[in-house]
């Protein structure tokens, strides 16, 4: 057991630090806007082998040998210097890995490079009003019809909870193409240009007042026949290939540590029952109790990271990371609401807009969203019990 990196990794870290010293902040010649500077920096970082390490060069990635420790060093050093990482969003998180796994050469060439650079924004079309946790019961239909330029899919139905769909150009959609086949076997994975006719996007106002999610309505919306990923009826399997590529737990644990540190800073700056909050025995006890969970999650992630690096299977802990993160978020919210005192009467401000303590209400409400998005906490518990423990599945499934 050794929490230090060995000499060759330390040398790699020095290379990353030197690279950042030269390239970030980007020079004025890189462009005028922040977006131009970020795009320039990403190109340099790809050339140096630091971003999109799993994506082949022919599709715009840097095609490096997988090395989870190097990836961790890159993320640590980039975030210390606040340098841009891989372009955020569901396109890079989910679509690119899916296309790499299941897409045609043409689909890869057409979509991956511009998704990497952040030019293409994607929305996810999975959930429906009556297909949430039970996603495979989805009813949006797609049928092949003859269009002006050959065969096309005609899509009819409604999707919901599509994050930032109002700003996206494309969507990946799960639709039922084989109505006679079984629940899972009738689904295909389609891509569609959201500018096409027959598509209505309606943002949903959420509990915080913000609008990060959308309803998307399809009324005979068309997409070319070959914009299908994988075969007809294999969409469920294709969508699972994406899940396997979702980010590992490691980032989650570091986020939890960062959130805990901010909470401690908050406690140092506010009053609680007449004393600085951090000096109050109740607050100290609650913070240390929370820290037990946070540090467990951190060192558990170190263990999982080490096991991944050693090509060992960490077992059922991998099924638990989301719930652990969610639980920590709830505990942070619970303490934060007491620390901010009567600022808890206010609306959470639009993100990044306010300096007041009420900004913690974004974490307070956001922790509720985390508990739902990407599989609710109760669904996570089912998964742990059934896949982790091997308990018998519910008849409803």
């Amino acid at each position: 057991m050794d929490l230090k990196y060995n000499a060759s990794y330390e040398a790699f870290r020095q290379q990353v630090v030197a690279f950042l010293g030269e390239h970030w902040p980007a020079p004025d010649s890189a462009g005028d806007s922040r977006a131009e500077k970020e795009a320039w920096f990403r190109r340099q970082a790809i050339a140096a082998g630091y971003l999109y390490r799993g994506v082949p060069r022919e599709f715009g990635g840097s095609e490096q040998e997988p090395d989870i420790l190097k990836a961790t060093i890159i993320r640590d050093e980039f975030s210390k210097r606040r340098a841009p990482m891989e372009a955020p969003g569901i396109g890079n998180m989910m679509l690119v890995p899916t296309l790499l796994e299941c897409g045609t050469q043409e689909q890869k060439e057409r979509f991956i490079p511009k998704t990497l650079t952040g030019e293409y924004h994607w929305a996810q079309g999975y959930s429906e009003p009556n297909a949430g946790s039970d996603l495979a019961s989805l009813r949006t239909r797609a049928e092949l019809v003859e269009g002006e330029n050959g065969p096309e899919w005609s899509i009819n139905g409604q999707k919901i909870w599509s994050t930032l769909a109002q700003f996206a150009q494309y969507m990946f959609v799960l639709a039922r193409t084989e109505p006679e086949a079984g629940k899972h076997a009738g689904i295909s994975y389609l891509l569609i240009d959201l500018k096409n006719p027959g598509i209505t996007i309606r943002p949903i106002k959420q509990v915080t007042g913000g609008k990060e999610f959308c309803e998307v309505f399809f009324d005979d919306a068309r997409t070319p026949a070959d914009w299908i990923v994988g075969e007809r009826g294999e969409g469920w399997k294709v969508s699972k290939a994406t899940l396997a590529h979702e980010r590992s737990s490691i980032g989650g644990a570091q986020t939890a540590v960062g959130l805990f540190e901010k909470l401690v800073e908050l406690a140092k700056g506010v009053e609680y029952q007449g004393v600085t909050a951090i000096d109050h025995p109740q607050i100290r006890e609650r913070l240390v109790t929370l820290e037990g969970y946070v540090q467990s999650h951190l060192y558990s992630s170190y263990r999982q990271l080490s096991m991944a690096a050693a090509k060992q299977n960490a077992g059922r802990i991998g099924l638990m990371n989301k719930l652990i993160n969610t639980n920590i978020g709830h505990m942070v919210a619970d303490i934060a609401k007491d620390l901010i005192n009567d600022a808890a009467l206010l609306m959470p401000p639009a993100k990044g807009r306010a300096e007041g303590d009420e900004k913690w209400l974004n974490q307070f409400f956001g922790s509720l969203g985390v508990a739902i998005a990407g599989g609710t906490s109760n669904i996570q518990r089912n998964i742990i019990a059934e896949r982790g423990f091997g308990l018998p599945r519910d008849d409803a499934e």
Partner: protein
Amino acid sequence: MEFLLSEEQLEIQDTVKRFLDKHCPSTALHSYFDDPAQLPEAIWQGLVEMGVPALIVPEAFGGMGMTLLDLAIIAEVLGQAAAPNPLLGHTLATQALIYAGSPAQQEKWLPKLASGECLASFATAESGNWLAPSLSCVNGNITGQKQHVPHAEHAQLIVVALAGGRYALIEQGATGLEISAENVADRTRPLASLNLNDCPAELLDGDCGNAAEPILNTALVLLAADSFGGAAQCVDMAVDYAKTREQFGQPIGKFQALKHQLANMAVDVEPMRGLYWHAAYAFDQEPETASRQAALAKAHLSDRFLHVARETVQAHGGIGYTWECDAQIFIKRALFNYTFMGNAGLHRKRAADLADW
């Protein structure tokens, strides 16, 4: 960067585990539990033969000079089996000699402690006070009371914690030493009170700075490790029971309410292995963080072990409330781990104070 046990560590952990599978299955555990006056001789001899008491003793004194992590991973396995054993008190006495003994005292005692020729224990608690002992040794004699001394009746040597961070040795059979068994709940680690009446004692007079801290941290790390093993076993027991017990014509593990209860238990338990590993690692490699990490680990792991042990009783229904069910032994061990050397409130307060907040 490698936060994993080494091949050798996994091997010794596995050796002890296989030994306990054989010598401390549920039936044997219950017979030990029902006869706490006996030293669990077969288990202790087995640990001695596997070299466990020698692990952390320096090589110069017949030990193996290994780390606290090496010992903590054994404590985990002992906790998993709820094994009756005198290792805790013996180890704390060993640490007292390592950190506070003179070379002559170390030369005399450590080889015997390492070989198991001499079983030792450690006395610190006074009326609920674990961390600030008040007794003193006057003219080679101690007068006063100590409580909660593990396996005191079987120890040939007892290290007594004194005021001012001093320690003294008392040998079994000394005049003025009166030992009375306490009516404890956890009979796998029976405790006794000492009544010392002008009892002859030998001060540890080495030059080892502040020995109290590493001795306390050793106790906290071992209790945290034991708690991880116990809590993990509780989850396994509850899951096994959910698979085999049938009601309403199906295994109860098919009911979502129980699935969720079991999942919540595992979500508490699985990640905390890393916290105790790190506390042991800090003791060995990062002395500046060792005290805080030990306090945090003991508070968190013993607290969660106790919670999960309670849930385990519930998950077993009526049988869980009986003497014959293993769950009753685990919940009592959990209560011991939670309370011994100070409960979670005390160590959370210490962790906050040590955090520079």
